């Protein structure tokens, strides 16, 4: 129980201006919306940087960018996409949906939730502000000694910005965990939680334990750069490899931070649009948890070529991670198998995710083969892997989720036709942009370089990749138009437009402040399905009767 007097609940439509309302809101749905819109804006910013780079790489020779600007761009592109787009986007979706899915009225700490959000624009200003101070041309991995010997003050801004974003993530993680552990509605046992809630839980644990380690590393870099410290400087007795250990101890769990929520989103959508329950719920939970745990054991697979790590150990555990990931694939496929598939945009994106993420995952398994990694480390093969997991993975899942929950968030369904146009543009664009990078990488083209030799026969594949990048950019336009026109239209989607399973569909669209006037009985992981099909899950009801208590219907 709270220790202080309970503050009066604020009326929703107060007389303050709506700007002030949004600036001071502690409602998890509004904060979620703030996260999502901010993140989408950053997606555009990061995308423009990518287009600039791909334009330069369309042909050999320098046409458009200077080498230094190119270095700034690829560094900032990665930082923007990872820390300012995907992470805030996933936090935003979780913020909006997770409390609804567990039948809570808000997050556990609404004011800390607001603080967590506002740290994001603050961090963004610092990080993007780096461009005004020489940029931070050191890659998103910020390896020592490069980061220590590059004078640009933009790097210091980047370090500070990342500390703020890290704090935001840690606060968010604490909030999600407290919410999930303490605010579940009666009957919502752990093993009835929707999969997005499970993946948010594991993601939060990863953030809670990985993020502070990055913070400690950033602090060390900052001290080395500004106060004459020697952590990563061999001439002072420090060790540059130490940075790689610290960074990747964070960095590998981080990749699961970027993908686990995507797994959660896809696992919400596939059952609804297959008209079947998720196949192997328990296996799915177990796979999520073991991915989380194993995620802390494999960081040095990013350091195979340093010669400073014990290769068999890290290679073995990296392969091991592919097992729970594979389990998830089988679960999704088995869920769809024999289902009445309804190919609305959310499922389209989910299936696109499953198909293309498989490629990215297989690339990862290749990279875990030490001799192969020695060949392709720091080539475009790794760039291809990154983008098949992050674009075809996280980004596809994000669009799947946005199309799926847009009616819940706004009350209006996005246009299906525009959605399908967008999907096919993005699907084709992704493959055209990133598949050729496999071949370029195998052929030896190194990453993070502004130019390539004209006589290696790489020009055609690079041009193709650039065309793909512009297709991806084009795919964003129908989406923006779609959102714009939909929001101007009627908000008539109704509470449950997809005939879905989980609790967020039991309240109005958009939900009122504090979310629910009443909750249906929760006797399985599909309470809204149970409500609509009484008797369909007798077995579940019998099993859950003890926890759920008497039925009032």
């Amino acid at each position, binding site marked *: *129980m*709270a*220790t*202080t007097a*309970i*503050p009066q*609940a*604020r009326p929703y439509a107060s007389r303050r201006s709506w700007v002030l309302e949004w600036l001071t809101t*502690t409602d998890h749905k509004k904060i979620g919306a703030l996260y999502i819109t901010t993140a989408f804006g950053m997606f555009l910013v990061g995308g423009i940087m990518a287009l600039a780079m791909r334009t330069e790489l369309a042909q050999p020779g320098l046409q458009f960018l200077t080498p230094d600007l190119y270095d700034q761009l690829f560094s900032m592109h990665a930082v923007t996409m990872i820390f300012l787009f995907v992470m805030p986007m996933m936090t935003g979706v979780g913020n909006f949906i997770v409390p609804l899915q567990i*039948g*809570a*009225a*808000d997050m*556990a*700490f*609404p*004011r800390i939730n607001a603080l967590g959000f506002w740290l994001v624009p603050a961090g963004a200003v610092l990080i993007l502000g780096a461009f005004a101070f020489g940029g931070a041309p050191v890659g998103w991995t910020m390896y020592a000694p490069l980061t220590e010997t590059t004078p640009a003050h933009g790097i210091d801004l980047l370090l500070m910005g990342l500390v703020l974003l890290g704090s935001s993530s*840690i606060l968010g*993680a*604490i909030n999600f*965990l*407290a919410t999930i*552990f*303490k*605010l*579940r*509605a*009666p009957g919502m046992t752990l093993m009835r939680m929707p999969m997005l809630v499970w993946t948010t839980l594991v993601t939060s644990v990863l953030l809670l*334990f990985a993020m*502070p*380690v990055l*913070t*400690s*590393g950033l602090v*060390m870099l900052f*001290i080395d750069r500004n*106060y*004459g*410290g*020697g*952590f990563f400087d061999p001439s*002072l*007795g*420090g*060790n540059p490899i*130490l940075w790689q*250990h*610290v960074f990747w*101890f964070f960095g590998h769990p981080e990749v699961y931070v970027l993908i686990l929520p995507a797994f959660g989103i896809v696992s919400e959508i596939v059952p609804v649009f297959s008209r079947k329950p998720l196949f192997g719920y328990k296996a799915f939970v177990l796979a999520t948890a073991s991915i989380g745990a194993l995620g802390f054991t494999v960081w040095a697979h990013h350091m195979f070529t340093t010669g400073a790590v014990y290769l068999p150990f890290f290679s073995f555990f990296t392969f091991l991670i592919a097992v729970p990931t594979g389990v998830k694939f089988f679960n999704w496929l088995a869920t769809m198998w024999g289902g009445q598939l309804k190919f609305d945009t959310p499922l389209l994106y989910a299936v696109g995710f499953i198909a293309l993420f498989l490629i990215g995952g297989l690339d990862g398994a290749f990279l875990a083969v030490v001799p192969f990694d020695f060949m392709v480390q720091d080539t475009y093969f790794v760039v291809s892997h990154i983008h098949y997991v992050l674009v075809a993975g996280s980004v596809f899942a994000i669009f799947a989720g946005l199309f799926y929950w847009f009616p819940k968030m706004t009350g209006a369904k996005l246009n299906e036709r525009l959605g399908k146009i967008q999907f096919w543009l993005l699907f084709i664009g992704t493959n055209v942009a990133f598949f050729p990078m496999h071949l370029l990488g195998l052929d030896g083209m190194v990453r993070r370089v502004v130019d390539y030799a004209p006589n290696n026969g790489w020009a055609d594949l690079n041009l193709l990749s650039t065309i793909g990048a512009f297709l991806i950019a084009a795919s964003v336009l129908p989406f923006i138009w779609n959102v714009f026109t939909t929001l101007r239209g009627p908000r008539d989607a109704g509470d449950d437009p997809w005939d879905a399973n989980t609790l967020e569909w039991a309240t109005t669209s958009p939900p009122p*402040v*504090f979310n629910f006037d*009443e*909750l249906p*009985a*929760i006797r399985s992981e599909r309470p809204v399905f149970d409500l609509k099909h009484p008797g369909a899950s007798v077995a579940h009801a019998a099993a859950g009767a003890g926890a*759920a*208590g*008497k*039925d*009032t219907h």
Partner: protein
Amino acid sequence: MTASDSALVTHGEDAVTTGHGMSHADRGIDTALLGMMLFIGSEVMFFGGLFAAYFNIRATAPIWPPEGIDFIQFFPVPIIATAILLSSSVSMQWALSRIAAGDRTGLIRGLAVTLVLGLTFLGLQAFDYYGLLTDHHFGIDSAIYGTLFYTMTGFHGAHVFGGVVGISVILLRAKQGQFSAKHHVAVEAVSAYWHFVDVVWIALFTTIYLLK
């Protein structure tokens, strides 16, 4: 809160607060305390990063500790500071036990003593730094040992400072009579944090002064 075990739960607006935990049921650990425990977990990882750096560098150094730093001794200032910080944990725990027994005056006394001890620790640390900087010209830029020493003890000191701020806040609230035998989760949370800061110091003291 009136979390019924009926399957149909209604949420009146009065059932919800905007700033504190909103449990559906009063079971298990308090939400705010859980939040603090999770925060401490992340802090453990932060210091874990610093300790990992220390031991990585120590393991790869040709000689350790580096030559010429024999002035880093646990006697007299560090050991006194340690004794003070350890006793502040005792007084904190005593304050907590007092309020659990409904003794508000005891709580205030215990917190006041803890606050003074915490401030004394910070004073001693500043004194120690001053001596090292002026007498031995040993700073954060004095090669890797200086960097490690000041970063680790400095971040610990910053956390002590954070704890001092926290204690001041609950001391003020205690004076206003905001805590009772049943409602004092903020005291519990600050006390958990304070013990954590103490444990970090024990690890630091052992690493820097005893293991060397």
